[in-house]
C-alpha cells in the first residue's frame, strides 16, 4: 500500500512539474492542480497509512480498533479548500491577462517587460 501511495504521489508530482513548465496559462493551472493533489496526499501520508480507523471517537466505550492520526487530516482539509481559492485567483488572473493581452502566454513579451 505504501508503495502505491508513494508512487502515486511521485507520478502526480512529476506530471505537475512538467505541466507548470509549459508556456500557456491553462496547462500551468492544470499543473498546479496536480501539484496540489500531490502535496495534499503527501501531507496526509505523513500521518502514516491506516485502513478502516477513521479519527471518529467511540465515546461509548465499545471496542475500537484504534484511530488514525487526525492532525494531518485537519491540515489537509483546510489546504484543499485554500487551494481552491488559490486556483480560482490564478484562473481569474490568467483570464484577465488573456482578455487584456489577447494571448495566454505566461511569459512577458518584450514590450511588456519594459513597462
Amino acid at each position, binding site marked *: 500500500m505504501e508503495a502505491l501511495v508513494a508512487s502515486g504521489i511521485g507520478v502526480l508530482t512529476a506530471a505537475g512539474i512538467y505541466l507548470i*513548465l509549459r508556456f500557456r496559462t491553462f496547462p500551468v493551472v492544470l499543473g498546479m492542480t496536480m501539484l496540489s493533489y500531490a502535496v*495534499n496526499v503527501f501531507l496526509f501520508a505523513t500521518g502514516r497509512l491506516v485502513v478502516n480507523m477513521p479519527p471518529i471517537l467511540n465515546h461509548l466505550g465499545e471496542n475500537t480498533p484504534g484511530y488514525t492520526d487526525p492532525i494531518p487530516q485537519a491540515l489537509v482539509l483546510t489546504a484543499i479548500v485554500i487551494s481552491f481559492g488559490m*486556483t480560482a485567483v490564478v484562473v481569474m488572473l490568467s483570464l484577465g491577462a488573456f482578455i487584456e493581452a489577447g494571448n495566454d502566454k505566461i511569459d512577458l513579451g518584450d514590450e511588456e517587460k519594459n513597462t
Partner: protein
Amino acid sequence: MSPALIAALPFLGALLPALLIRTGRTNAAVAAAATSGLALLGLLLHAPAVMRGEVITARYDWLPWLGLNANFMIDGLGLLFATLILGIGLLIILYARFYLSKDDPAGQFYTYLLLFQGAMVGIVLSDNILLLLIFWELTSLSSFLLIGYWKHLPEGRQGARMALTVTGMGGLAMIAGMLILGNIAGSHDISAILQAKEAIQASPFYLPALILILIGAFTKSAQFPFHFWLPHAMAAPTPVSAYLHSATMVKAGLFLMARLWPVLAGTPEWFYIVATVGLITMLVGAKIAIFKDDLKALLAFSTVSHLGLITFLLGLGTKAAAVAAVFHIINHATFKAALFMSAGIVDHETHTRDLKRLGGLRHLMPITFTIATIAALSMAGIPLLNGFLSKEMMLEEASHTLWAGNAWIVPAVAALAALFSAAYSFRYIAHAFLGPVRDDYPHHPHDPGFGMWAAPAFLVVLVVAIGLMPMTFAGEIVRTAANAVVGGGLEMYPIKHWHGLTPALWMSVVAVVGGLLLLSLHPRLNAIWLAMPRPEAKVIFDAIIAAAARGAQALTGRLHNGSMSRYLLIFVIAALGAGYWAWTTGQQGAPTRALTPATPVAFAAWIMLIVATGCVVAFHRNRLLALVLISIVGLIVSMSFIYLSAPDLALTQISVEVVTAVLMLLALNFLPKVTVPETSVLKRRFDAVVAVVGGLGAGLLIYALMLRDFAFPSMSEYHLANSYTGGGGTNVVNVILVDFRGYDTYGEVIVLGIAALVIFALTEALLTGASSRKLIAWRPDVVRAGDKHPLMLLVATRVMMPIALMMAVFIFLRGHNLPGGGFIAGLIAAVALVMQYMASGYAWTQARQRVYYHVLIALGVLAAGITGIGAWFNGVPFLTSDFGYFRIPPFEKFELATAMGFDLGVFLGVVGSVMLALGGLSRLARRAAVGDEGFHVVAEKPDARALAEQTGPLEVGLAGEWRRSARLGAEEDK
C-alpha cells in the same frame, strides 16, 4: 511626569495640529506649543533631582527576549539635550507661526515638527540601544518630511532625499554597530553597557563596532566626508533649518558619541578617528562657509564646522574636553538657532538671502541687526559672549594635544579653523547689515513684528547672559551633563573669562585679527576661490546614486526577465538540489513500520490514477479533455481518502472537485480550447527529466517517511484523548478545526474571503475600460448549444436544490461528531447554488438572491470572530469552546457546542467565497454574451421578480432572464 510620557507627548500631540488646522493656524501652533511646553514642564520638574545626581527611569518590558525594552532614563546628558530639543522647539513653533505664509500647509508642518521632536526626545531619553535605534530611524524619516516640506521645490525634494539616503545609510551601519556592542556587553540597556568599559575595549570586535557606530554618528552630524547633505537640506523652510541644525537632528550624532563616551572613548582608535575627523570637518566647513553668498548656506557650513569642533572635543577623550564639548553644545544651540532665525527674517523681509544683494540693513532693520550681530559675534568668539568661552576652552585643549607625536599640528589647525570661523561670522554681519543702504532690494525691508523676532531675541539674551555669567546660567547644567558624559566623578573647574596670557588667548587674538583681515581681503580671495576647481558633492552623490540604480536595474533585469517558466524551472531545480543535499547529508534509521497490505481494489485505483495522470500530460493540449481527465484524478484521490480512513477529506475533496470543474469550464469559455505546441522537443525532454526527477524525489521521500515511525511523540495523542472531554465532539478532525486549532481555521476562512474579494476586484477591473469593450465585442470560438437552459436540467436542479441544501444542513449539524462540518457543508451548499446558475442562468438566479456574497463572507468572519470573543466573557482565552447536552422531549438528548457558532462562520465564509469567485467569472461571460446578441435591448419590464409573480417561475426563468440580462448589460455599460 514619567520619562516615557515625556517622550510620548510630542507623538500624541502630533495629532492635534493636523486636526485643528481647519480652525486656523494659530490654534494649530498653540496646540503644538502646549504639547511641547507640557513635555518641557514635565522634564524640568525632574531637573532638581537630576542635578543632585539622580537618574530618573521608567522601564516597560516590550520584547524582553530580544532585549528590546521601552526603558527610558533622564540623566544629566538626557536632561540637557531634552531641554534644548523641547525649549528650542517651543521657540521654533512660535517663530514658524509668523514665518510660514498663508499658503503653506501649517497643520502638516506642526505635525511633522512634533513627530520629529518626539523622535529626538526619544533618542536622548532612551535607556535601551534598540529603542534608541528605533527613534534614530524615526528622526531620519521625520526630518525627511520636514526638509521636503516645500514639496513644490525640486531642491527641497532632492535635499530631503539626500539627507534621508545619507543619514539612513549611516543608521543602518549604526544598527550593526549597536548590536555588536550589545552583544559584547551582554545587554541592550545603555546603563548596563556603560558599566562594561573593560569588556568592550578588550573585545576584538571593539574596532568594528566603533567604526560602524561612528559612521552612524558622523552621517547624522554631517562630519567630513558625509557633510555634504547638510547644506542641501537648507532648501527646507528656515524654521526647520533652525531647529534641525542648531539643537536637534545634527546634534543626535554628537549626543550618541557623548552617550557612549564612557565606554568607547579613551583609546587611540577613538582619538585618531573622532578627533581627526572633527578637526578636518571644523577646518573644511569653516573654509567653505567664508565663500558662500547664500546666508543659509553660510550658516549651514558654519554648522558643519562647529559640529566638527564638538566632535573634535569629544574625540580628545579627556574630561576637560568633554566639559568644553557639552558647554559648546549649549552655546552653539543658542547662537546658531538665533542666527538661522535672523537669516529667515532677512529672507522673509527682503525676499533674498544673497549676500551680494544685501547690505545696509542696519538702518532698515535695527532689531534684526542687533540680534544677528550679537549672535554672530558669539559665533566668532568675541569676549563676553558665550561662544568665546567655549571656543577658548577648545583652543586650550587643542594647544596641548599631540597628534602622532606632533605638538603643533592640532593647535595650528584649530587656530586656523577659529580664524575662518571669525571671518565668516564677520562677513555675515558686514555684508548683510553694514555698508550703505541700497535701493535695489527685491522687497522693501523693515523689521518684522514682535512675534517673529521674539524667539531669536530670547536666545540672544541667553547668549549674553551665559557669556557674562557662565557659572550662574549654565554652570550647573554643564556640570550635570558633563558628569553624565564622563561617567561621574568630575571635578568641575569654574568657567572663567580670564585665564591669564595662555596660548589659547593668543590663538583667539590671532583668530579675531586674522578674521578681520580675511574679511577685508574677501573680494580678492573670492575671485581665487571661484577660479579654483572644487568637487561638487551633489554631482558626485547623484552619480553614485545613478550608478547604483543602474546596477540594480541591470541585476533585476537579468534575474527577472519576465519568463515565468524560467523562474519555475529555477525554483524546481533549486528545491531538488536542496532535497538532494538534505538526503545525502542527513541520517535516517532503519525502517520500523510494517507495510500495509495492498488490496486488489487499491491496486485497481492505483492503475487508474497512473493512467489518468499520464493521459492528462499526454493530452493536455486538448483542454476540455484534460479537464475531464484531471477530474478523474481528483475522484481517485477522494476515493483514496475514504479508503485510508479520512472520510472528512474525501467529502471535502469531492465537493471541491465539483466547484473546480465549474471554475475551469467558466475559464475555458474564453480561453483557447487547444494549446498549440510551441516548445522544441529538446526543451520538452529536458522538462520531462526535471519532472521525473522531482517526482522520484517526492515519492522516495514519502515512501521513506511512511516506513518509519515518528521521531518524536506526536501531539495527536493529546487531541485524540481530549477531543471528546475537552471539545465535546467525537470527530477529532472537526474538533481540531473548530476548537484546538480554531485560530488557524479562523485565519484560513479570512484568507479564502480575501481570495474571493481579489477575484471580485479583478472582475470589476475587467468590466471597465478597454477590456470591457473587448468583452462586448467577443465572438465565441465554439458553437453554442441551441438550448441555453435545457428544461430537463432546469427541473432537475430545482428539485434537487432543497434536497441539496438539506444535505448541507445535515452535514453541518453532524460535523462535530461524525464526518462533516462547516467546510464540507459550505461546499455542498455552494454546489447546490451553482447548479441553479448553470441550469437557470445567472440573471435568473441573481434576481432571487437576497443576500450579497460579500455579506456572507463578512457574516462568516464575524460569526466566527464573535463566537471566539464570546469565550472572553467566560473568562477563558479567545476561541475556547464550551458545550452542553440538552433534551427537549420528544427528541433525543442532543449536544450544543459554542464551536457550532464558529463552524457556522466557516460555513458562511466558504459559501460566500466560492460563490463570489464563480460569480465573478460568470459576470465576465455574461458581459461577452450580452455584447454578442442583444446589448442595446432595454427591457420594458426590468424587474424579473415582479414578472415572476405574474407569470409563475418557470417561464420567467427563461424569458425574464433574457430581459433582465439586457438591462444589466446596459446598466453595467453606464
